[in-house]
């Protein structure tokens, strides 16, 4: 149906005030921009951190967040299984990062219209921290550069973003069994490379904050 079939019957006040992702996505599919903006507010931080961990640059990650959501809007005809909006956004983000130059070219005009950052009183302290983050992330990414792209995609989704196998399969559009085998191969490769995957998998408290 044209306008949010899944919206019907949602009488619960809490659900009305805080509709779930699927309800917002159904409304977005019907052209409701405000609903899409709520999805953006809800998941921008998650996608921002995911993109940062793929490119190691906070500024680039910020632009990629915009690209991911513009791409999601462009593909809003997509029907998603209930509760799978975020995995799908992860999938778009993975593709956007993988084809970064291509994505940035598609959205170049839109990105040129992004307003300049507003001055911030604690900008310098924040900037220093972020520069440290970037150096740290670049080191990790350099280690992982030995991994084949397909294994890296699965590893980052499952180990760093802690997606389930099912959600990773939705994000990447591959069967669950393939997710499982690629993750196993990625871990084996990391071990061959002498990398402590248990640590790099993000089992530190800081990595948990991404969720």
């Amino acid at each position: 149906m044209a306008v949010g079939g899944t919206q019907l019957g949602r009488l619960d006040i809490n659900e009305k005030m805080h509709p779930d992702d699927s309800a917002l996505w159904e409304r977005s599919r019907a052209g409701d921009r405000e609903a899409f903006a709520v999805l953006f507010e809800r998941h921008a931080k998650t996608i921002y951190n995911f993109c940062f961990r793929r490119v190691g640059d906070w500024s680039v990650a910020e632009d990629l967040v915009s690209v991911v959501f513009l791409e999601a809007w462009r593909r809003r005809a997509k029907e998603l299984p209930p509760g799978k909006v975020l995995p799908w956004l992860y999938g778009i983000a993975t593709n956007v990062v993988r084809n970064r130059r291509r994505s940035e070219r598609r959205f170049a005009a839109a990105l040129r219209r992004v307003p300049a950052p507003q001055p911030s009183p604690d900008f310098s302290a924040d900037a220093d921290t972020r520069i440290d983050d970037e150096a740290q992330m670049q080191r990790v990414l350099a280690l992982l550069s030995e991994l084949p792209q397909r294994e890296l995609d699965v590893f980052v989704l499952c180990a760093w973003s802690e997606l389930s196998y099912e959600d990773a399969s939705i994000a990447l559009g591959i069967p669950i069994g393939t997710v499982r085998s690629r993750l196993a191969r990625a871990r084996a490769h990391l071990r061959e490379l002498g990398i402590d995957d248990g640590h790099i998998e993000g089992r530190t408290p800081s990595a948990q904050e991404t969720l």
Partner: protein
Amino acid sequence: MTNSGHSLPPSRDLPPGRLSQRKDHLLAEISRDEPSFLAWPKRTDRQGPAWAARPALIAALVALAALLATAGLLVTRAGTATASAAEVRARVTHALGSPQNISGTFTVQTRPPSPAHRRQGCFNCYPAVPIPSRFVIAADGSYAQHSQGTQRTLRQNVNVRSDIAYNAKTGVQTSYQHGSVKGPGLYVTATNLDPSVPGYSPEAQLAAFVQQALAAKNPHVKNTTYDGRPAWQMTLRFTPGDDFYDTYGVRVDVVVDRATGLVLQVTQYADGPDRWTSIESIHNLTIGASANPADFTIAKPRGAKAISHNYGFRRVAISEAAGIVRYRPLLPKDTGGRPLVDFAVANVSNQSLYGVHAPAYHDVVSARYGRGLGSFAVSTRRGNPTELPALFEGSSARTVKVTRGPLAGEIAYLSTSPPNPGYLAASHSGLIVQVTAPSAHDALAIANSLAAAR
């Protein structure tokens, strides 16, 4: 390696103020009439003509173009953009949720399971000749359909004519039938109609099936042309046990107009995947055709037998309904954004017509929300649970439990027959409650959202 050297940096928020800036930017971009990212930008950064700088690339492109052109000639298909089944379904849904004037010709062509002369005791041993119907559907819910042709029977050829029209502005339906029964043609003027009875729409009929089928199946989508228009073609295959198998058979081919999302053709293969048994087609499709109010009234032909039928519904305010029917009607709290477009009550609604007896309905309240295929209707009337099975005669149903609202705990019947995807009926406190919606999911959701209106 050490932990400090290779641990992940912590998760961070976007810099102060940037989340709202980016959100505003996103809203501005997606609100543009033609967002720039919907099309690839033209390159403007080249120095000099591209062909001079990249001869190898140009040669490769020329070779590729030649290959594609050859392939295009071979397969005689139009366009290059393909879509997923879900995208096609969303397009169909969007098209029908947007009321617009549509006109065309609707044809149903059928073929018996085996050649007619081999069948035992056939009444009509000639293959049925399809009689096209011209139709016009207006954005306001008015519609008209005209068909006229010759039916060939064992004894003679019979000229048949069937017209029906509904004028949404006057609320009057007129129809004329000739040739299907002996005697003069029958001209019927029907007034004070039930808002919950769906109107004529061949497009909606075809699309209802396609929406349901595409929700259950995920066929490959191919590009094709239909009446010279770029279209999508899909093949759906069903096996015993599918809801669709009993009604549609082993295979259905669907053609959807790419520009409008309207379903143009549904071909059924009831017995085997290689022999069609039914083709429903829309040809001469026109979108946005101007519609004259006179188009939606059938004039009485000379010599026709005229009958007037009053269904007994009165358009009143919702607040008046309880005083008329002596119970508080059940209406949905959440309509999914669909406006109330028709609301009426009837103390007695006579359903007998053409000499066919049918029981009258008492104290009926009917409401319709939204227009087009996306619309739904809720109707309540006096009745008891023993009436429910009869409402599903000729179609299959399953029972579901309503969990919220006044019907909470009641067992409802929900149609599983694909032609009636979203029909639900339940009994509650001496009332029969019926919901007609685009899908079974919607019908149940609406039943769960009902509340007693004041």
